[in-house]
């Protein structure tokens, strides 16, 4: 049968399998064929796990044939950012540092999805250890935006976004430390969720900045995001920062929220400055559409927004410099084994295999944490972090959700910002504050530019308001068809 892999949702796949319109093996093979045909151009994957995928597909077909219970994600083909540990499958974190590393265990959230019969089809490209906003900092290659192959897919989870956008999978996993799910989702026309900090376990995902990192998903629809998040989320004994807050049945709450009477805050700071006029127009068109649905639009101010980037680029490199200290070459990863002196071994292993952006961030963090600077940078940045958090809390006394752009521009040409780290950092201007505050945010496809490039916007919710965001996203996607568009490859 002919299937548009670009449009299939998880629930549709399940129906197709259960009604025996297609076998899981056939379906998986279709995805693999598409990867073989188009990934040489898109370059979404570092590793394609053909054997793993086909074996899992056979296992699901056997379950169907023998009437055994199926997992909630049966037949959903999943691309996973290469910073998630996957037992027995090479995990590089997009870096030469971990090239050849075969994890001895799997990350908790990935295991939850496999347990519900999701199929791993491959590990996707990322900026080295998720340090970047375009995948150009990958230690292997740059991924391309399926909407225009000369452009970046965004990052750091750009390989995952490109894979889903190109129809190589049913959904994909990413991580969002400063926008790394929402921004590539916006640039590739996808739905991306950054959950509340602590909602999803970080265990078994290479750590970037431990007080910011949020695992999450790329999906075609808010409905799929609700389904997967319901499975991923929850407390994990191996991540002390994972929340004990109970996990709602997101999927069954998709109709709970309505735009009628909803108070939507528009923070003026998110519509100023470097925002591309076309992006601004598209985002504001959606605001008008929601107003027409009965939403109440309220102008708000988050005065410390501009400081978000500064807080982020102090605290994140500090946490990175600490987290990256574990890459000593002794227990895993590549190393300079010819060195006979321990200090020389550390220096040359790290000097040789770490990529430039990794070194850059370690240097900033080490500097900011070093004697004489600690209070001026680290302690001060934590205080400003709380200031930003308080501003959001005050805003949520007046509004139900906050609507904002995701990326100041649509996807940009590969190479344009690659040599100017500060410009690349500023690409995160509308996303980082949400990570600084630890809030949830759902990025939704919101339209296209004259050049036919997707533009997204984000709905930011209060702490643990994911069910509200998924529900509003679902209502929005019932009204619009932006999420149903796919690129021609």
């Amino acid at each position: 049968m002919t299937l548009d892999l670009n449009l299939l949702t998880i629930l549709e796949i399940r129906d197709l399998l259960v009604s025996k319109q297609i076998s899981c093996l056939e379906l998986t093979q279709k995805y693999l064929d598409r990867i073989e045909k188009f990934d040489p151009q898109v370059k979404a994957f570092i590793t394609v796990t053909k054997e793993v995928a086909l074996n899992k597909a056979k296992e699901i077909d056997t379950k169907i044939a023998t009437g055994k219970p199926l997992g909630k994600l049966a037949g959903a083909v999943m691309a996973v950012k290469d910073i998630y540990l996957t037992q027995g499958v090479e995990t590089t974190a997009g870096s030469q540092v971990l090239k050849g590393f075969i994890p001895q265990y799997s990350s908790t959230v990935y295991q939850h999805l496999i347990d519900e019969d999701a199929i791993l089809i491959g590990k996707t490209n990322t900026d080295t250890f998720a340090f970047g906003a375009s995948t150009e900092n990958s230690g292997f290659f740059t991924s391309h935006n399926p909407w225009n192959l000369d452009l970046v897919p965004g990052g750091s989870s750009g390989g995952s976004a490109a894979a889903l956008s190109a129809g190589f999978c049913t959904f994909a996993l990413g991580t969002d430390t400063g926008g790394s799910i929402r921004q590539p989702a916006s640039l590739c026309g996808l739905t991306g969720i950054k959950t509340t900090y602590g909602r999803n376990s970080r265990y078994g995902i290479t750590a970037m900045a431990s007080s910011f990192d949020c695992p999450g998903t790329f999906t075609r629809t808010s409905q799929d995001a609700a389904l997967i998040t319901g499975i991923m989320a929850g407390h994990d004994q191996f991540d002390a920062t994972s929340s004990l807050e109970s996990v709602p049945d997101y999927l069954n709450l998709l109709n709970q929220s309505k735009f009628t009477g909803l108070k939507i805050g528009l923070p003026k700071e998110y519509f100023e400055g470097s925002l591309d006029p076309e992006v601004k127009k598209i985002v504001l068109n959606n605001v008008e559409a929601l107003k027409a649905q009965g939403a109440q639009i309220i102008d708000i101010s988050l005065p410390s927004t501009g400081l978000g980037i500064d807080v982020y680029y102090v605290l994140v490199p500090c946490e990175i410099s600490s987290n990256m200290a574990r890459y000593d070459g002794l227990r895993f990863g590549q190393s300079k084994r010819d060195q006979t002196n321990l200090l020389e071994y550390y220096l040359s292993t790290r000097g040789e295999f770490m990529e430039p952006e990794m070194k850059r961030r370690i240097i900033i963090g080490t500097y900011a944490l070093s004697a004489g600077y600690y209070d001026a940078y680290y302690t001060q940045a934590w205080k400003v972090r709380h200031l930003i958090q308080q501003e959001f809390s005050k805003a949520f006394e007046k509004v139900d959700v906050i609507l904002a752009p995701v990326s100041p521009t649509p996807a940009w040409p590969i190479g344009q910002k690659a040599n100017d780290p500060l410009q690349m950092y500023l690409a995160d201007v509308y996303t980082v504050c949400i990570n600084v505050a630890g809030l949830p945010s759902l990025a939704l496809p919101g339209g296209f530019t004259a050049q036919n490039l997707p533009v997204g916007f984000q709905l930011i919710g209060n702490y643990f308001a994911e069910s509200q965001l998924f529900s509003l996203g679902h209502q929005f996607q019932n009204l619009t068809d932006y999420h149903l568009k796919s690129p021609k490859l």
Partner: protein
Amino acid sequence: MDNSQTPQIDIDHVAKLARLKLTPEEKELYTSQLLPILEHIGHLSQVDVSQIVPTFQIGKTKNVLRPDEIKESLPQDKALGQANSQNGYFIVPQTIDK
């Protein structure tokens, strides 16, 4: 940090603390790229945070404790599986003079 001065970075000292061997070209490149970043993040020092009590976590969770019980963990062969090892030990360069 003195706000009136352009930030300085002693790249050799920082690289040593970070256990990174850098080439002369890398030192020059990173120093030139870091100064504008340090200048940018220097804005933080001007923010009035006198009303903020410093804490170092973002969620509501505090002091997560658990009983100190011995539980099953990664078996030795797996733990050593990705390392240069011999007879159940990690092999590291010599650290003490003979």
